[in-house]
């Protein structure tokens, strides 16, 4: 199995296109970084104490005017974190090189695009090149071969996410200096106490949380690739879903409650942390169940078709 995965990776990274995609991602990061330096000057690091104190005053007035208890709790946590930072001399993330990395999660759709292109080609290309025949007349079950391909796609996604994380950090650091890079991540635990956590770990898990959509468009692309053996079809449909999926969902969500059973209503899990689900009554377990069902359907379709079909061409 390890060797099958190595093969898939060898094929993937021998392709020029794969490297171009990585280069494009890095260029985008650099471009956005440079533009934002001239367009919107960064926060003045020396002023962070004053800003936090100001922020806390604003939070206090908001709490007094707020009716929703959930939002009140959210605001109180922010206030606690600010106070902790002030008393422990911890520079908040927005004044460190990590701030760009935090914003970098907005670029995850670009990663999704690249990953779905790879996912759409990885099975279908073998058919269009005719190499599928020599691939399948080897002492390995078709399931294992398909699994190796899927894992290879996931690895590529992970690689791009890590690249995005590192590149945004490096970009911000190079443009503004690396001061306070070792600032910890502050959060409020279940008991209501402020805790210090690892910043990199926090940012990466935030990326993963924002990558549910990525996982699904990649899986859909992989499925179409395996069922229709046509890379263009797989990539086209998946791009369409990537662009329109979330948009259409939020458009219809206001009108129809059954939207909550659709895939894209459930992919942005961060809505539960921010305390504002798309449709009233949706919960994290609900979303996880819906997502698992979709995942199962996509994966089973891909697997059954791939393992049963006669290789004709």
């Amino acid at each position, binding site marked *: 199995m390890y*060797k*099958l995965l*190595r*093969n898939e990776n*060898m*094929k993937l990274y*021998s*392709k*020029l296109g794969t490297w171009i995609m990585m280069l494009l991602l890095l260029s985008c990061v650099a471009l956005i970084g440079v533009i934002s330096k001239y367009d919107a000057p960064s926060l003045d690091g020396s002023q962070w104490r004053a800003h936090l104190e100001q922020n806390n005053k604003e939070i206090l007035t908001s709490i007094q005017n707020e009716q929703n208890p959930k939002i009140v709790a959210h605001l109180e946590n922010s206030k606690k974190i600010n106070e902790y930072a002030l008393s422990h001399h911890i520079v908040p993330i927005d004044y460190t090189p990590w701030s760009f990395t935090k914003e970098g999660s907005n670029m995850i759709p670009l990663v999704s695009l690249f990953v779905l292109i790879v996912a759409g080609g990885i099975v279908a290309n073998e058919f269009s*090149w*005719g*190499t599928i*025949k*020599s*691939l*399948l*007349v*080897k*002492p*390995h*079950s078709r399931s294992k071969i398909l699994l190796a391909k899927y894992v290879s796609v996931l690895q590529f996604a992970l690689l791009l996410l890590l690249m995005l994380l590192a590149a945004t950090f490096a970009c911000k650091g190079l443009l503004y200096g690396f001061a306070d890079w070792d600032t910890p991540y502050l959060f409020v635990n279940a008991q209501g106490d402020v805790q210090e956590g690892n910043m990199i770990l926090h940012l990466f898990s935030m990326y993963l949380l924002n990558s549910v959509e990525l996982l699904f468009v990649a899986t859909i692309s992989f499925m179409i690739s395996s069922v229709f053996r046509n890379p263009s079809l797989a990539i086209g449909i998946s791009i369409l879903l990537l662009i329109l999926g979330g948009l259409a969902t939020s458009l219809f969500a206001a009108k129809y409650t059954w939207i909550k059973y659709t895939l894209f209503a459930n992919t942005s899990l961060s809505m539960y942390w921010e305390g504002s689900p798309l449709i009233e009554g949706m919960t994290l377990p609900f979303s996880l169940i819906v997502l698992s069902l979709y995942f199962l359907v996509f994966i089973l379709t891909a697997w059954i078709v791939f393992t*049963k079909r*006669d*290789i*004709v061409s």
Partner: protein
Amino acid sequence: MNQDTVVQLRNVTKKIGMKTIVKDISLDIPKGKVFGLLGPNGAGKTTLIRMMVGLASITDGNITIHGANVKHEFEKAIRHVGAIVENPEMYNYMSGYKNLLHTSNMLPGVNRKRVKEVVSLVGLEKSIHQKVTTYSLGMKQRLGIAQALLHRPSVLILDEPTNGLDPAGIRELRDHLRRLADVEGTAVIVSSHLLSEMELMCDEIAIIQEGRLIDVKSIKDMMHTDTSNVTIVLDVDQPQEAYVLLTQLPLDISFTVHNRTLTGKLAKEQIPAVVFALAQAEINIYEVKMQTQTLEDKFLEMTGVH
């Protein structure tokens, strides 16, 4: 079951929808022989090969390789097999060497040394690190054979192996397969629609037509001529006189005259008597030629295509 049988087909049938592509074929393919599947295009040869290597499902019947059933013990059965189904297809954007590594990673017990060995076996040392895009068809074919031979398979299956090869390439391939069968005892299975090729390459051929097995014959048997009834062609300077003379002989031979040649059917032992009679009558003989039936004639006779 014969001890030498490596690949065994029993009542193998393939149906796609209502259409029967292969019907009830049973074959025993022995080791150390080059075994040909011969038949016109669309006869079901490729489908049969696809079923042997697990690319197509078997509707009915069983195929076993070294006793392992392709249907139920695929990984065990295919371990012994090296195969090229139709054209050898490569990852064109990678070097030949990387293509070989890719294959070797999927096969048990193939190390780098063996990869090198196979490269020199097919004579690709010079170009092995170039991208496959730059290869000629013949080179691709050789790379394909290198891939198929990496794990020293005891069964080598090649579908239309000579497609696109020049005469030198075909000859090279033929010698190679011959050596594999004779020296290594490999069971080589090739398919082709070209008779002349099969005649030179194979020890035994199975003739397939419209999905059915017509006959299995060894090339020797097919080429064997019945000496009691051969056709000879005589080229003489006085055909009419010769005709009259020969019909008067007490040999019971019927001749036909065509320009300067006489054609007749007779037993092989009678030929000297014919020649002697003509010589005695001072008829000049320029050529006496025995007309052997070609494999093609036999094939057409067997398949009933004229």
